[in-house]
């Protein structure tokens, strides 16, 4: 693939010229439809870098692990997360090199499993998926004695379907051609807002009662960056660590609130969730509110402070007595 080839070439140049000490990119995962983060320090290793719709991890997550200059292969959402981290002063801009790669969406593995009734590790249904390939807007999945070709656009992550930033808004180097596309409006959210409080509460009760409190959503989130997370804290214990529904809802309220104004809807939390909780609605609602109230969109510019660490005297206060 052309993009992969240019990524490798640029990666080699960056490492050889000493512009970055470590480059974070993607390499082939151990299972089909998966990719692993690759941490390349040596320009001889650049050939392991890949880029395809299975590269779904948000690589901004890893930058805090490294000293020196860090380069990141960034899709639109990764790029926005990186910008958010710079705005939040988690990394110095001079230490960060963003290699932007326009992305036309990543796959949601679960949609593929559901469509094919197959899974890399399950022997039920069609059995295991052995291999997958992406070409020309299709994903070709092979099993032991079967092969299926699926339309890529039908198995993209939900967040990719409404993505407005396929190209990172802030980058140091762009590989490939900028994709300009107007994301669709979030109809789901608009419809949900119209429901009654009772209906909404029931929905969240049902959805969040699936949660097993594994915190995978927190672990994969690049903006969940506290060294000492409030849910791990026991003195004081703000809320229980059990899967009691009230405690679980507290957790998700706090998680959504803490990522307000910083969540870029990369969908990593939804893809990481082992029980398939859909928390995007909460994040989306706050994203909307931040945009409407404070005119702020996360990760599109380095020039504006995070909305909750700034204020304007003329902020609306119609809800205050």
């Amino acid at each position, binding site marked *: 693939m052309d993009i992969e080839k240019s990524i490798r070439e640029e990666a080699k140049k960056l490492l050889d010229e000493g512009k970055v000490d470590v480059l974070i990119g993607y390499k082939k995962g151990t299972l089909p439809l998966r990719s692993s983060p690759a941490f390349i320090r040596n320009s001889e290793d650049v050939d392991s870098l890949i880029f395809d719709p299975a590269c779904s991890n948000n690589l901004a997550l890893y930058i805090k692990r490294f000293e020196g200059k860090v380069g990141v292969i960034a899709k639109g959402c990764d790029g926005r997360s990186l910008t958010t981290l710079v705005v939040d002063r988690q990394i110095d801009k001079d230490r960060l090199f963003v290699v932007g790669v326009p992305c036309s969406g990543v796959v949601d593995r679960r949609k593929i499993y559901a469509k094919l009734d197959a899974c890399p590790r399950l022997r039920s249904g069609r059995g295991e998926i052995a291999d997958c390939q992406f070409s020309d807007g299709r994903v070709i999945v092979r099993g032991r004695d079967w092969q299926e070709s699926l339309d890529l656009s039908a198995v993209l992550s939900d967040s990719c379907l409404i993505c407005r930033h396929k190209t990172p808004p802030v980058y140091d180097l762009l590989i490939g051609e900028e994709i300009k596309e107007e994301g669709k409006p979030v109809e789901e959210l608009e419809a949900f807002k119209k429901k009654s*409080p009772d209906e909404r509460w029931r929905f969240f009760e049902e959805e969040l009662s699936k949660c097993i409190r594994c915190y995978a959503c927190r672990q994969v989130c690049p903006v969940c960056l506290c060294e000492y997370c409030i849910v791990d804290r026991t003195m004081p214990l703000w809320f229980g660590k059990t899967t009691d529904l009230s405690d679980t809802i507290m957790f998700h309220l706090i998680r959504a609130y803490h990522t307000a104004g910083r969540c870029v809807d990369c969908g990593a939390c939804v893809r990481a969730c082992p029980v398939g909780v859909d928390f995007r609605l909460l994040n989306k609602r706050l994203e909307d*509110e931040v945009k409407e109230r404070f005119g702020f969109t996360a990760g599109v510019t380095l020039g504006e402070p995070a*909305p909750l660490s700034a204020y304007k005297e003329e902020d609306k206060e119609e809800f205050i007595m």
Partner: protein
Amino acid sequence: METKDWQPKILAFLCNWCSYAGADLAGVSRIQYPPNIRAVRVPCSGRVDPIFIMKALQQGYDGVLVSGCHPGDCHYISGNYYARRKFALIKTLLEFMGIEEGRVHFSWVSAGEGEKFAEVVRKVTEDVKRIGPAKRLVKGVEA
């Protein structure tokens, strides 16, 4: 629970410099207001982490009021401006999730506004009474 003598419990976070003094003025002026609030004195409305509000609801308070200085009057110059942004989001989030509108209230009450403080408490108590006892998010209660 829902008997006719049910009285709501409302937790009120009052900023030390304005609203707490406002409550004091209401007291010394002998202004009557409902005895449903439990006041917590905080240094500034900016001190009120939204988790305080969630926790109060989880612990079974029927309503929460956060009150601070008017914009421009903050003892710490800008605490209430930051607070205003936080409150806007937490109110949106709670109500989006299905917590009844009217459980969580915010107000600006200065040290000289004893009558306004009483009025705010009357309004909040009335609102919470109208909604009834809290069930959602309360630990150990089936909503």
